[in-house]
Each structure stands twice: as structure tokens, then as C-alpha cells.
């Protein structure tokens, strides 16, 4: 385990910091062509005619492809509603109509512009509430014919509906002493990885190798195989260094289109997105939401009932968003004891970029609304907001909205520690205040594999299917293997990411890398450990049960002089039997719950190894301008047992800064024609290092039971840190201004407008 005294330096750190690291866009190959896409010219239109004649005739153009040049396959993880290229209709501005490969990007762009597309423009639906109104134009007239998972409840523009039902919410509301009803709206936002999407594809015979800036190489491989109708074994996906993802590079994106171009052109083809393309095209941006929340409480602060209507924005096509309504419905209750619940959540098709998992999908926005609502309820019954939460936050033995009984959890401890760290209640100038918000997030158990081998020189190699997306989770795998094998983390090399070499892993998504692949690596290391001990027992003529692996040697417990080094054992093994360990640990079972009354059950009805978070944020509000500055943050997390504090703290720091961005500035505006108004970094304002406040981090140690969580009782860490930050900031703003901001992001103009309403 790495500690402050024993710092752990990531193997990829130096390359990335010094600029030596090679990313996908850095790759060059003999004869390589450059790809450009022709995007839709309307957010919603019928395609009448596509003519590529002029584009094909342009000198330097090697391939021009449209829907006619690829198999007519609809795809999508939950609902198969899209094609690689638009065929009959375009449904958002970033949809692909055609692709070109040419000698230079400029020629490819020019060729794209020479493609003639005739459209019949259709009414643009960009408002999620309007989309669900009776009589709204259907985005997908053939929606009922699409292939889809049986559990997805669909109806026209409502692509996925879920309900959470517990007790009788109406009856509960009638019994309440006070009922508070509020409405909140969150704008769509983006993952904004610094590296835009980049892909290189090269064919050798009927096999294609694709270098891609993907977070999920195995998912990308399967997407290419499905859409180009190839055997999966003919597709190899390699990921060079990945320049961030935050969910924006989950799912399967442009690997198939670039591969199709390369096949037609008979040359390697490279695609590198511009920032604008990165903003408008990939089907993974954070969904907009409308939340109507109603809560009934008793005078003592106990919550009798929560009713909520949540509408989420799917965009034009379904990436992985169909499971969001159920997740958002759970978020609309939060980690509180609520006796009666009815949440109804829908996923509305609109003529905008498709939504998909971006770091803790649905949670920061829903938590922002719910935690403001909690403060509003507390104010109505005259309770301090922290005290109100204290009375309702879930503890061991309490039940979730679907009657999952919580085990040893540290939710309440995160609340207490966060208010202590920030100095809640201290005297502050009248333009400053502390806001508090509590959130939760599940861990995701998914099959994952790894090999650990000990090489002839005694060094180790971890061969993993897991993908490093910048969090350091893959980089920290040597810590887990080293501890089991009595070696140093530096003794290990990592071999990733190549779908032909590593065992399956679902990729850098769902905070699942350490949680699942960590267990696989530990199992593989234990497998090798057994092999090493067998060898050492022979070598030392000792009982193998008396042996231990410590400091790079196998030795007899209690008589350390009787030992043999791991390199010596490795050398011996090399001439005889190789040291190879395999790991693919069983996935933890989902906790029991009672979701009998719920519809649209897509796996989120119970939370595996749930994590709990409290953020307390000290803000200063410039009352005249509405500008909010975050002065200080306390972020306390319960993520089970923390394995690598440096990595975990890094996730919290990044998550909090991302949360501040979402709270104050990050949001996309959509014009009436369905286009994004600010698809560039000057007007989609990320936080800079200069904006980042001090962040005090606390951890509540609450390891899961054996087999119920990740390695050593750990839980997921990557996503939770951005969950409660916007809500905590919102509550601080409301305390200073006396006005609630009901739209996210809470830009200076919106804060000012709330104050001057």
C-alpha cells in the first residue's frame, strides 16, 4: 500500500508530464490518409439525396463513403436505434452523413463540402418536456420496430421509463406536517477530455487493427465487429496513452467509420477531431434534466414521503443512457430514510447530441436539485440543514428506496467529518457561507481478467485488459500484485491495452477498474505465488506452509537466513516450468432488494458496495455581479477501504474541481435550430488551476464484507467525487443571497437574476 511516506510514482507519469508520451494522434504510418466527416446540415431533416460525385473527383481523395458503403446495421447497447451513417433522416447536428479519406485533412474537408445532400427539414425538438408532450413530432417513427433489451420500457419519444415505488407516496404526503415542492432544471454539459477523439485504422488482409482514444477497447472491438459484420477475432483495438475521458470516450464511437474508410482506401487512415467536433458529435455528453421534487416531512424532521418526476435528455440516439432514468430515480431520493417513495423518470429523445455516461451520470445534477431541496425543506420546518440531514441519513440496518438493507456504511460519518473539517457554524462575513450536500453512488461489479507472469530475470509483468484513462487505476495495479508476491511495485511492467493480448475488461468506466480488475490481478498474483512457493519449497527443502514471500525472497518464517531470491526461482522456473498466473475473480452478487413495484428495472434497483459522500463548500458571492468564488472545500468520502491514498486523493481533487465547473459555468446552450451555441472552450468555460480552491480531503474507513466489494473491501472511487459539489455550492449561494438558483450551471448572470427576481 502506498502512503505519504512511501510515495508511489506512476509508470506513465513521467512520459505524460515531459511530453514524451505518444497518443493516438501522434501515430504516423507510411501512406497514411486523413479522415474528415460530413456532418448533418440540420438537427432534424429527411435525407432526399446524397451525391458524392464531386467529392470523389477531387484530386487527393482516396475514399468517400456513406451508408451505402457499410452494412445496414442498427446498433446501440440498450436500444438499437442508430447506424454508422444517416440513411433516411438526420436527427442531430453532429450526425454523420458521409466520411472522406484524403492525402491531407484540408483536402478531406474540401471534399466533405463538395458532397451534395438534399434535405427536407423537419420540426426540431430540443426541449425535453416538449418532446414528451402528446402530439410532439416523433424522432424515430419506427421506434417500436427497433431491437432493444426487454427490460427497457419505451413509448414513442420516451426511450426509457423507470419508476421507484416504495410504500404509498400519496398517503405519506397526506400524513406529512409540511410538504415542499420545487422544480429544478439542469442544462446539458460535457466530459471535455483534453485529447479529442483520435483513431487510426489499418487493414492487413481481412483483419483490422485500430488504434483508438477509447476508454473501452473491448466495447469498441465489439462495436466494429457488429456494425461492419466482421468476426470479433478480426478486429484488434490498441490504445496508446489516453488523454483523459471522463466518460466522453466510453461506448463505441468512430472506430468502424475509420476502419471502413481504410478498407475502401486500402491505406491506413487517421481521424483527429477538432475541439468543435469533440463538442458536438460524440454520443457521450452529460444529460440535461428537469426535476420536480416534492417532500412531506413531520415536525421532528423525519421524511414521510418523496414524490418526484424526472425527465432526462437522451438526445437523438441511445448510447448507454437508457439505464439513466432508474439511476436518476434512485438519486432523486438520495441516501436518506424515506418512508414512502414514488419517482417516475423518463428519457426523452430530442434533436440534440446523444447523452451517455459522463463521470457519475445523472448524479451531480440530481444531487444538486435534491440537496437544494433538502435545504429548502429544512428551512420550512426550522431545522439547521446539517441537523436535518443528520436525522435522516442512512446508517447500518436502514433501507434504501427499494428496501436494500445497508451493511456497515459510513454515510453519517462523512457528514460529521465534513462539517468538522470546514468549520461549519463559524462566523463568516455576510457575503460568505458554507453549503453542505450529501450524495451516494454505486460500485459496478463486472467480469474482468488479468495475467501476472514472473519473467526469467525475476521481474513481473501484469497483462491486463483494463484501460488507463488517466485516473492511475491501471498504474496502481502493481501495488496489489507486489504486496502478494513480496516484491516492489517497480518490479512490475504493465502490458496494456491490446484486445488481442489482455483478457476482457469492460474498460475505464463505472469506477470499476480497481474494483474488478484489481481483484483479477490479486487472484493472478496469488496463483503465481502458489507456483513460487512450490518451487521455493523444493529449493529450500522446506515445508511450503512454512514459507513466506518478503522483500523479493522466499524464506522460511522465523529463520530468514533460509531463503532463495525470486530472481533465482524465476531463473530456475525458466528452464523448467514457467511462472504464469491467471485471475478472473467472481463478480460480487447484487445486494437483495424489493423492487417488485418498480418498472424499467435495468440493474440500478440495488446498489452494490455503495459509496457515500459529503461535501461542505465555503463560498463567497459577489452580490452585485453574481460571481461566486469557491474559497474552501471539505470533501469526505466513504469508499470502503482506500488502497492507494495518493490516487484516491487525486480523484477527489479532480472530481471536486469538475463539480465546481458544473456548478458555476459548464453548460451547453441549445439554439432553436438544435445547434449548440457554445461548442468551444472560450464560452464553455472549464475551471482553471487558478480557480481551484484548497480541498481538504477526509476518508471514512468502512471496508465491505469479504466478497461484497472490491479488493480488500474497497469500493469505486473515480466517479463519486463530483457528485455533491454542485449541490453544496448551490446551498452556500442560497445562504448568502436568500435566493435559490433553479438552473444549472449557476452562472453569474443566473445568480444575479435569482437575486433580482
Amino acid at each position, binding site marked *: 500500500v502506498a502512503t505519504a511516506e512511501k510515495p508511489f510514482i506512476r509508470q506513465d507519469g513521467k512520459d505524460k508530464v515531459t511530453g514524451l508520451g505518444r497518443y493516438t494522434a501522434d501515430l504516423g504510418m507510411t501512406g497514411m490518409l486523413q479522415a474528415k466527416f460530413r456532418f448533418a446540415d440540420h438537427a432534424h431533416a429527411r435525407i432526399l439525396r446524397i451525391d458524392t460525385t464531386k467529392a470523389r473527383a477531387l484530386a487527393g481523395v482516396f475514399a468517400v463513403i456513406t451508408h451505402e458503403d457499410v452494412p445496414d446495421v442498427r446498433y446501440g447497447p440498450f436500444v438499437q436505434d442508430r447506424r454508422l451513417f444517416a440513411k433516411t433522416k438526420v436527427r442531430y447536428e453532429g450526425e454523420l452523413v458521409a466520411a472522406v479519406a484524403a492525402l491531407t485533412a*484540408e483536402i478531406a474537408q474540401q471534399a466533405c463540402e463538395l458532397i451534395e445532400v438534399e434535405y427536407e427539414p423537419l420540426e426540431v425538438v430540443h426541449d425535453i418536456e416538449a418532446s414528451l408532450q402528446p402530439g410532439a413530432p416523433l424522432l424515430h417513427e419506427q421506434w417500436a420496430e427497433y431491437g432493444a433489451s426487454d427490460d427497457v420500457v419505451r413509448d414513442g419519444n420516451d426511450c426509457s421509463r423507470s419508476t421507484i415505488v416504495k410504500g404509498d407516496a400519496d398517503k405519506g404526503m397526506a400524513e406529512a406536517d409540511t410538504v415542499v415542492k420545487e422544480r429544478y432544471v439542469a442544462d446539458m454539459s460535457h466530459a471535455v477530455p483534453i485529447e479529442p477523439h483520435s483513431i487510426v485504422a489499418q487493414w492487413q488482409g481481412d483483419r483490422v487493427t485500430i488504434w483508438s482514444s477509447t476508454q473501452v477497447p473491448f466495447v469498441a472491438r465489439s462495436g466494429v465487429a457488429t456494425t461492419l459484420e466482421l468476426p470479433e477475432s478480426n478486429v484488434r483495438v490498441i490504445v496508446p496513452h489516453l488523454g483523459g475521458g471522463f466518460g466522453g470516450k466510453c461506448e463505441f464511437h468512430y472506430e468502424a467509420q475509420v476502419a471502413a474508410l481504410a478498407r475502401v482506401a486500402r491505406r491506413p487512415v487517421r481521424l483527429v477531431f477538432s475541439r468543435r467536433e469533440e463538442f458536438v458529435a460524440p454520443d457521450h455528453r452529460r444529460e440535461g434534466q428537469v426535476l420536480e421534487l416534492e417532500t412531506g416531512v413531520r415536525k421532528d424532521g423525519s421524511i414521510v414521503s418523496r414524490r418526484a418526476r424526472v425527465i432526462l435528455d437522451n438526445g437523438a440516439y441511445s448510447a448507454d443512457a437508457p439505464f439513466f432514468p432508474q439511476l436518476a430515480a434512485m438519486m432523486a431520493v438520495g441516501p436518506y430514510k424515506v418512508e414512502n417513495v414514488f419517482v417516475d423518470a423518463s428519457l426523452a429523445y430530442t434533436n440534440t447530441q446523444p447523452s451517455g455516461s459522463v463521470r457519475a451520470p445523472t448524479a451531480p445534477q440530481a444531487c444538486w436539485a435534491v440537496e437544494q431541496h433538502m435545504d429548502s425543506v429544512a428551512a420550512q420546518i426550522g431545522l439547521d440543514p446539517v441537523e436535518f440531514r443528520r436525522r435522516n441519513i442512512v446508517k447500518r440496518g436502514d433501507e434504501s428506496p427499494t428496501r436494500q438493507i445497508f451493511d456497515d456504511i459510513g454515510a453519517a460519518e462523512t457528514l460529521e467529518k465534513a462539517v468538522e473539517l470546514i468549520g461549519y457554524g463559524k462566523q463568516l462575513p455576510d457575503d460568505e457561507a458554507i453549503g453542505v450536500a450529501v450524495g451516494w453512488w454505486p460500485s459496478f461489479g463486472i467480469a474482468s481478467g488479468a495475467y501476472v507472469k514472473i519473467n526469467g530475470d525475476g521481474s513481473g509483468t501484469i497483462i491486463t485488459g483494463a484501460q488507463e484513462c488517466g485516473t492511475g487505476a491501471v498504474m496502481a495495479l502493481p501495488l496489489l500484485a507486489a504486496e502478494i508476491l513480496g516484491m516492489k511495485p517497480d518490479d512490475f511492467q504493465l502490458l496494456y491495452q491490446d484486445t488481442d493480448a489482455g483478457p476482457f475488461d469492460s474498460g475505464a468506466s463505472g469506477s470499476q477498474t480497481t474494483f474488478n480488475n484489481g481483484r483479477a490481478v490479486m487472484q493472478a498474483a496469488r496463483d503465481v505465488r502458489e507456483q513460487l512457493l512450490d518451487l521455493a519449497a523444493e529449493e529450500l527443502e522446506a515445508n511450503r506452509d512454512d514459507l513466506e514471500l518478503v522483500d523479493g525472497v522466499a524464506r522460511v518464517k522465523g529463520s530468514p537466513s533460509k531463503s532463495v531470491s525470486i530472481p533465482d526461482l524465476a531463473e530456475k522456473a525458466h528452464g523448467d516450468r514457467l511462472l504464469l498466473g491467471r485471475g478472473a475473480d467472481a463478480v460480487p452478487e447484487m445486494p437483495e432488494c424489493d423492487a417488485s413495484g418498480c418498472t424499467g428495472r435495468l440493474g440500478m434497483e440495488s446498489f452494490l458496495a455503495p459509496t457515500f459522500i459529503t461535501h461542505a463548500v465555503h463560498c463567497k458571492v*459577489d452580490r452585485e*455581479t453574481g*460571481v461566486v*468564488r469557491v474559497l474552501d472545500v471539505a470533501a469526505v468520502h466513504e469508499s470502503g477501504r482506500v488502497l492507494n491514498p495518493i490516487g484516491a486523493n487525486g480523484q477527489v481533487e479532480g472530481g471536486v474541481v469538475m463539480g465546481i465547473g458544473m456548478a458555476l459555468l459548464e453548460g451547453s446552450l441549445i439554439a432553436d435550430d438544435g445547434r449548440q451555441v457554445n461548442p*468551444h472552450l472560450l464560452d464553455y*468555460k472549464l475551471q482553471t488551476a*487558478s480557480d481551484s480552491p484548497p480541498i481538504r480531503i477526509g476518508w471514512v474507513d468502512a471496508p465491505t464484507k469479504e466478497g461484497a466489494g472490491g479488493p480488500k473491501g474497497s469500493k469505486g472511487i473515480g466517479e463519486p467525487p463530483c457528485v455533491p459539489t454542485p449541490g453544496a455550492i448551490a446551498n452556500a449561494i442560497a445562504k448568502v443571497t436568500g435566493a435559490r438558483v433553479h438552473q444549472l450551471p449557476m452562472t*453569474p*448572470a443566473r445568480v444575479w437574476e435569482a437575486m433580482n427576481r
Partner: protein
Amino acid sequence: VSAATYTSARSIADALSALSSGARPIAGGTDLVVGARGGKAPLPESLVAIHAIDELRGISSAGGGLRMGALVTHAEIVANATVRDRLTALADASAIVGSHATRHVGTIGGNVMNASPAMETGGPLICFDALATLRSSSGERELAVAELFAGPGQTTAKADELLVAITIPEPASGTGSCYVRLEYRRQMEIAIVGATAVVTLDGGTVRDARIAITALAPTIHRVAEAEQALNGSDASDAAVHAAAAAAAGASRPISDVRGSADYRRAMAAVLTRRAISTAIARARGGRFPIPASPALHGAVNGGPA
């Protein structure tokens, strides 16, 4: 993105001859290159790089004032003691242009000739009566920076003229100044609303006030009504408020993704008031952080508001 020809000039004469054959000048490239990459405008067909022309460098004394070569960077301006002491509003402005990287590469010449209505240094230069020296192969002329700005991205300079220097006369003693902008974040920002105040005090009386507003009209401009509200006054809060209200009244803001016209107009009054108050405080010898914007914007150790 690509330009057809790119030459690097070693002297002003080289550069002028390139300009007369149709080339456009490039120095730091923080507007041209970034704009081309972002799809704002393609690079000109022919570029002449002027960054290696030593004659265009350096800040020197000129009479009691200063002469800045066109290649002087924002970072150099901020570091200059005379600018900080006597032309403080310009230091306030130069210190918040773009990012650290922009300020070390971007030049005053490029900033002025880019003529953005949201540029930081424009207000201070206009209020300090700065002159632009333009040279072409047929000669040299000087004109007020205020007369250089013709509209968003447009100047009154001819295509074959190169900005070689900006000259700023010595401000009268008893002058304090401030530039402040409404900013949503600390770095990589552009003014949503900006205000400049240059105030000369004579005892307790305002002898001369210059007020300019930024990002509130197609060009940065002075507001005569605001100046009149202050001139001859006792620099009281009432006078400052009247000047700020006049500035808001003279603004012609647009509604866009950065803010509505109503919000911008309201902010014009707030920002102008803050700029004037700080300029007056500085004229009285008070010391406030440079740049003023973050301090006036909720920083932990804030200045006057």
C-alpha cells in the same frame, strides 16, 4: 489552416516591403493562429513574421511618458515599474489578458491591431491618450488609439501599414487609474464587461476624469457623460454613482451566451463604479493589488468595492 507563404522579416523595412505586396503581419500568433484553428477565419494567404525585428522591441522613456514597441508582451508591460506606478490601469489590463502563456507570447501590437471590442488594454490606452505609430513604405503617421478602432476586428490602418509603437504621454500628477473586468474565471478569460477609469485629483476635486467601457459596444469607447459627472466633483460616492449610471446608459450591450443585454447593462454600472472608486483611491496614494479584477471580484483579500 495553412498559409501559402510565410516569410520572416529581420527589419521593419523588410516587413513593410512584404506588407506592400499583400502579406499580413504575425507576431505572437495568439489571435491569428488560434482563430484559424478554431475555424474563426482562415490564415491569410501570405504571412510576414515580425517577431525577430529588434527595432520593434522594448519599453523606453519618451518625454515623461513611455514608448512601447509593437512587440512588447503583456508580461513585459505588467513587469514595468513605470506602468505599474503611473499607468496602473494598463498594468491591470495586461495582467489579465488570456493565460500565462498568452501574456508571454502575445504582444501589445497584436492586441491593438486585432481590435476586439472585448480586448483588455484598449480602455486604458484610450483613456491615457495613447498614440499609435503606423509606418508604411511611403512614410509614418501617428494617430490616437481611439481613432484606430473602427469596429469589431477592424482598424483604420491601411493594409500596408505596420504598427511600430504605442506612445503614452506622462499622466498629470495626482492621477490614479484602474481597469476592471467582469470575469467568470481567473485565467483564459475574456471581458464580459470591462471598465477603465483614469482620475486626476487636485486636492479633493476631480480635475480630469477619463472613463471607458469595454465589451459594451462594437468598439471600446470613452463615455463623455460619465466623465462630466465626475469632472469638477468632490469624488464623492454620489458623483461616482452618477458616473457609473451614465456609463451604463451609454452602453449598447448584446445578448449572447456570456450574458443578457440587461445583465451586461447592470454590470456596466457596477464595474464602472468599481473602476472609478479604485482609481480615486489610487490617486489618493492607496495601494491595491494589480490586477484589480480578482480583488474586486470576490478574492479572499479583496480591495475596495
